[in-house]
């Protein structure tokens, strides 16, 4: 989120209003806060150790996904059954799996599909949700009725069941068994988008409903502003904050969703390597070789947690009522 407010607030001793309407006590008018929302949030966030820790962890995991070769020189597909099920050692930091592949390189390369799915799904969910939620909230009437009914229908479908059914149908297609890493990733992400946009759309619709009757929107309307100007210049910038928070938290959620679907056999399939396939593929050996399951879990859980904590910190920073 670009933020022009910071520069303006920092060095302006001249005029800061004290009055905020009759009866309001002078503990800093709330309007002031709403206005410098993002700059205030930024100042709050860089002082929040939990936020900093989780963002650092997210950055580390992201670097694994973008540049795995920076972390390991081994190829995850370079397996030798002779070296199967080796315990962690100097040669194989995380040992090897049942097929004799280096498990450390698997863990590194497994980050990419997991994070890609989460990123694509979140982007898609946010875009579709924001646009449809905005249209429903702004225009109301039959547009709202139509979109809201679709939202209700998708909501009434249990998320996991829906995803399992769709992916089960798609199992027949080649896409899920491609040699390249991205076609199955895309398929899983699209399924998550189809089922996930409704949450964002609901939040956005609520935000827009409360924003569209604000005085400054009416002022622009009385000047004769077009609908697109009202939506993009006046309503969107003031209604987007809750969506940003939800998007951050849902990044973590979709990483978990990928792992869940894969574990249930509906998501990515071997030879694709993701944290989900690592857990799913090795659960049978849990009793003898616990590390084969614990290592991918040990990456998955902190990653999901980091996104959730970062989202929470963002929510606290953006919600003026908590401050």
């Amino acid at each position, binding site marked *: 989120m670009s933020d*022009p*407010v910071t520069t*303006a*607030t920092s060095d*302006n001793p*001249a*005029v*800061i*209003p*004290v*009055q*905020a*309407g*009759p009866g309001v006590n002078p503990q800093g*008018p709330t*309007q*002031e806060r*709403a*206005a*410098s*929302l993002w700059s205030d949030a930024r100042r709050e966030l860089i002082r929040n150790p939990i936020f900093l820790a989780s963002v650092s962890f997210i950055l580390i995991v992201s670097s694994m996904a973008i540049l795995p070769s920076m972390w390991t020189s081994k190829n995850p597909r370079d397996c030798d059954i002779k070296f199967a099920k080796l315990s962690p050692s100097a040669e194989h930091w995380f040992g090897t799996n049942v097929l004799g592949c280096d498990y450390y390189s698997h863990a590194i390369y497994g980050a990419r599909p997991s994070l890609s799915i989460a990123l694509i799904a979140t982007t898609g969910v946010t875009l579709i949700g924001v646009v449809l939620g905005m249209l429903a909230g702004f225009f109301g009437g039959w547009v709202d009725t139509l979109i809201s009914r679709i939202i209700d229908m998708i909501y009434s479908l249990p998320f996991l069941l829906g995803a399992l059914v769709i992916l089960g149908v798609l199992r027949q297609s080649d896409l899920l068994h491609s040699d390249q890493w991205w076609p199955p990733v895309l398929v899983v992400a699209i399924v998550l988008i189809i089922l996930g946009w409704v949450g964002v759309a609901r939040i956005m619709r609520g935000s827009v409903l409360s924003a569209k009757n*604000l*005085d*400054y929107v*009416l*002022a*622009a*309307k*009385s*000047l*004769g*502003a*077009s609908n697109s*100007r009202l939506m993009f*210049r*006046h309503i969107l*910038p*003031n209604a987007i904050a809750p969506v940003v928070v939800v998007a951050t938290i849902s990044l973590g959620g979709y990483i978990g969703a990928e792992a869940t679907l894969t574990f249930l056999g509906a998501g990515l399939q071997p030879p694709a390597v993701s944290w989900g396939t690592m857990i799913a593929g090795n659960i049978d050996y849990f009793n003898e070789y616990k590390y084969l399951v614990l290592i991918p879990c040990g990456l998955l859980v902190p990653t999901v947690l980091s996104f959730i904590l970062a989202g929470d910190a963002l929510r606290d920073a953006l919600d003026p009522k908590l401050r």
Partner: protein
Amino acid sequence: MTDVVLETRDLVKYFPLTRGILLKKKIGDVKAVDGINIQLARGETLGVVGESGCGKSTLAKLLVGLEKPTSGSIVVRGKDISKLSGEATRKARRNIQLVMQDPYTSLNPRMTVGDIVAEPFQIHPDVAPKGAIRGRVQELIDLVGLNPDHINRYPHQFSGGQRQRIGIARALALKPEIILCDEPVSALDVSIQAQVMNLLDELQRELGLSYIFIAHDLSVVRHIADRVAVMYLGKIVEIGSDIQIYEQPTHPYTQALLSAVPVPDPTLRGHRDQIVLQGDVPSPANPPSGCRFRTRCWKAQEICATQEPLLEIRQKSAHPSACHFAEVRDVIHATQ
């Protein structure tokens, strides 16, 4: 009347009351504005006063085009703007601009002051060439008494009074002839109120503006208005010059309203002619028959329930008054 810039003819706005979600059934109307006729001359200030629920805010929304009238017309410079559509409406709207009540919510917190004042030019690109906008914005900000160097600041960096000035600058951008002020000073502190009222006064003299000044504060309206209309339940009950309304009110509602205004003079305590009204304003969805004020009026007779009093000059009222028993009673100067 000379040089009329704005006129409304039998302006009506009903909001339908519906029941049911899928099959909406109309069960009645909220008669927010019910047959308003006003005329506004060039350079004149018309005050509109009344209590909450009297329809003055709906009237404001109708005049600036935020609501469409149910029937009747709004004529600006001889053109009925309520019947126009599309681009023609947008052009016609330029001539009548709005200053809102709450300076804290009427400015977009994410836009700089420069962007806020420049927005009218962007919405109406034919008014000023792109290159000239910045200069015009600075002129406007200077005109309302703010520092033109501050155009890159955000609204929250200004006080309430300063924000109201920004709102006024935005309203002046398209060089309108008519400014509709909807409670422009009621959210401000007393020491700031006077500053904004004086600014409005100066701008009127310099630019020859006409104001419609909607307010619940009768003292403020008295200070700024040339003529005053008193509204009750969607209708004008009395209209006249400020002397006529304040010193020779003939409608019982106007008299009650005036007598209720506290006067900052303790020596008048207990000596003023105070009319205490009973009960509350009836619902505009179901207004009383005949005269709408009769349920709270001490003069009410049978005729008031059966025959609606017209807003007209009467035997004992030199200016239009909608009361069968209109009679002058100077409540603000009377002492007992």
